[in-house]
């Protein structure tokens, strides 16, 4: 008997344990949950929030926009670019931010397609990252242009001069890919937002209600509306995945298609995508940790299990990145081209060799050392730290690929080290703008897709087969 009771107790505690651990098994009443999300959003910002917000706003205005004005008036000479480093940190940042934006789509689209249930509470946060990241990438690439005021020449528009953008140029592909990506990811951000905005509309007053009213497009939650919305989201989830892959592949072609030692590498496409996911996952985990730590009720929605799941993904991606890095290195080295040899040696033993080793440490050693352990993996701050480290490492990777690699070319008479100038404050400005947009978003739209969580919770239940408590998930679609 006692044995039975013990078993029953154990089952009971196991069940509780499961509920505590998994959001999907720990449902709250729908009304309560909606309220929690609304409260987290409507919570009156503290003075700390405003302090940070004000500081970031200052950084954005001064470092990003004012300095950009200076850059436009005085020319690219304000930046550290020169011969042979015609490309500098602006393009590092472009690639970096496009990389960050990749994780958003990966989480919300790929994981949706593959029905990874742990994605549910943070698809919105990830999608925001995509859009906000792309904004920074766009800014960065325009900062880089010598005559940004004629940027529209890069767009195909009919004109009497019969001049068109050059479709042979990887930069034109880039522009098309990025604009496509920005448009589609914004739409893909918006579609799942509709039910939540509708929810917010029903629970708010004043100007907010007016805005949500417009954004909700009159969504009432009828069966027909849901069917259409689901269909649309499914289509987008499938459609946006190849866009995401293509975008970073095309970004990699900016380099891979060039005639430069160290750049002409056939493996750059997948290498860049994996790199993008690597930094993107790192960024996502940081965002989640911050949301969880600073916003009300978020410890309910974002739990250790999520960090654990993303941590696993990060570990796998880190391994994939290591594979591609080694593969690229191996092929470049084995090629035996004397300039490439020189370049590879310069990466390791040049004045910025420390950066190369730091990159390997933060991108490979650190994730592998920490993320293998399930307990450590469930610790938001630890995983968040790894996320930051990976992002630093991935930024280094792009720095090594761009300004450090272009130092070495086939004309040794021109080799020169790059010293950044105005790029540094402007780069910091983009980071500030990214955070600033996030902070604004956290107060304006529900960061948690409530309906998606509720949907998941409806589909999950604990069933007992004999003594065993088993999680069962029903098919919704």
């Amino acid at each position, binding site marked *: 008997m006692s044995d039975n009771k013990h078993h029953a107790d154990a089952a009971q505690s196991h069940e509780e344990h499961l509920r505590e651990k998994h959001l999907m098994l720990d449902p709250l009443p729908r009304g309560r949950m909606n309220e929690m999300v609304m409260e987290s959003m409507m919570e009156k910002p503290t003075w700390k929030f405003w302090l940070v917000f004000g500081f970031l706003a200052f950084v954005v205005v001064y470092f990003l926009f004012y300095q950009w004005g200076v850059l436009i008036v005085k*020319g690219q000479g304000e930046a550290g670019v020169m011969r042979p480093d015609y490309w500098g940190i602006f393009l590092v940042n472009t690639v970096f931010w496009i990389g960050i934006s990749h994780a958003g789509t990966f989480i919300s689209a790929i994981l949706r397609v593959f029905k990874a249930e742990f994605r549910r509470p943070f698809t919105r946060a990830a999608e925001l990252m995509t859009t906000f990241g792309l904004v920074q990438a766009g800014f960065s690439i325009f900062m880089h242009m010598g005559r*940004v005021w004629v940027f529209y020449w890069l767009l195909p528009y009919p004109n009497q001069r019969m001049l068109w953008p050059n479709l042979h*140029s990887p930069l034109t592909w880039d522009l098309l890919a990025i604009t496509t990506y920005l448009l589609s990811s914004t739409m893909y951000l918006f579609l799942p937002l509709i039910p939540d905005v509708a929810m917010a509309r029903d629970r708010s007053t004043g100007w907010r209600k007016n805005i949500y009213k417009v954004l909700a497009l009159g969504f009432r939650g009828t069966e027909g509306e849901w069917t259409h919305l689901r269909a649309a989201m499914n289509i987008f989830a499938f459609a946006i995945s190849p866009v995401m892959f293509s975008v970073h592949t095309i970004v990699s072609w900016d380099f891979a298609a060039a005639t430069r030692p160290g750049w002409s590498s056939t493996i750059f496409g997948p290498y860049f995508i994996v790199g993008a996911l690597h930094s993107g996952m790192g960024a996502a985990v940081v965002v989640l940790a911050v949301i969880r730590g600073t916003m009300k009720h978020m410890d309910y929605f974002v739990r250790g299990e999520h960090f654990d799941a993303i941590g696993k993904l990060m570990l796998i991606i880190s391994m994939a990145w290591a594979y591609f890095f080694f593969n690229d290195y191996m092929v470049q080295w084995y090629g035996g081209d004397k300039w490439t040899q020189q370049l590879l040696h310069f990466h390791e033993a040049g004045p910025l060799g420390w950066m190369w080793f730091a990159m390997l440490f933060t991108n490979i050693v650190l994730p592998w050392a920490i993320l293998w352990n399930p307990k450590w993996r469930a610790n938001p701050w630890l995983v968040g730290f790894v996320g930051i480290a990976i992002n630093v490492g991935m930024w280094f990777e792009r720095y090594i690929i761009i300004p450090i690699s272009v130092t070495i070319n086939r004309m040794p008479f021109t080799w020169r080290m790059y010293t950044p100038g105005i790029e540094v404050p402007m780069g910091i400005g983009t980071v500030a703008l990214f955070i600033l947009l996030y902070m604004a978003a956290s107060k304006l739209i529900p960061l948690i897709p409530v309906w998606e969580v509720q949907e998941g919770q409806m589909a999950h239940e604990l069933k007992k087969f004999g003594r065993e408590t088993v999680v069962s998930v029903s098919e919704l679609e």
Partner: protein
Amino acid sequence: MIRPEEIKMSTEETGKWGMVIDQDICTGCQACVAACAMENNITFVGEEDAGYGRSMHWIRIERFWEGEYPEVKMTPQQPMLCQQCGHATCEPVCPAFATVHSQAEQLNLQVYNRCVGTRYCANNCPYQVRAFNWRDYQRPEPLPNQFNPDVTVRRMGVMEKCTFCIQRIHKAQDKAKSEGREVMDGEFTTACAQACPANAIVFGRVDNPESLVSQLSHKGHGVKHLEELGTLPNVTYFKGG
């Protein structure tokens, strides 16, 4: 896109205008550099920018060292300028068609007014001979009196490079046409070749077997730089010695 059967061997003449530079007699005196700057309204950038790789020279003279003291030698001076490649790497990468191949003159053109300043062309140039206007470099009055009216004065944010003195090509062609004849070999030359005290630079039509430049470039020991990249450069170098 070039199909494999279209790829020409670099020994075949593909260009129209070409140059032969004899490194054995080039003394590195910089007369060509100065002549080029004067002819083409090239701006000076000042000590700091010049030392930081931002000088605007369209032609530079490279020299390296061989051996250690006392058996040290300067390698033959190597004037490096735009090689006016027949299959240039700078051209396809420009998103705005600002650097295009002139079908008429077989030169790599840089259309300043179309340039948006992505600097991809310069990045992709294996010879690193393109110069970017990093700033709006000022030439105080009355220095602008010297501007050559036949050459556009470039401002901030555009790429520039050697044009093989295309303004002289046009002028000579215009003159020849008005006189109802063809441009003769040696009738005109580029500013660098004209100034060179050592006569180390010869310019002319490489597609005319009679011209001095094509006869010289067919001499056995001429070298074209980085031709293994398939750029089909139109400048032939003699290392000599």
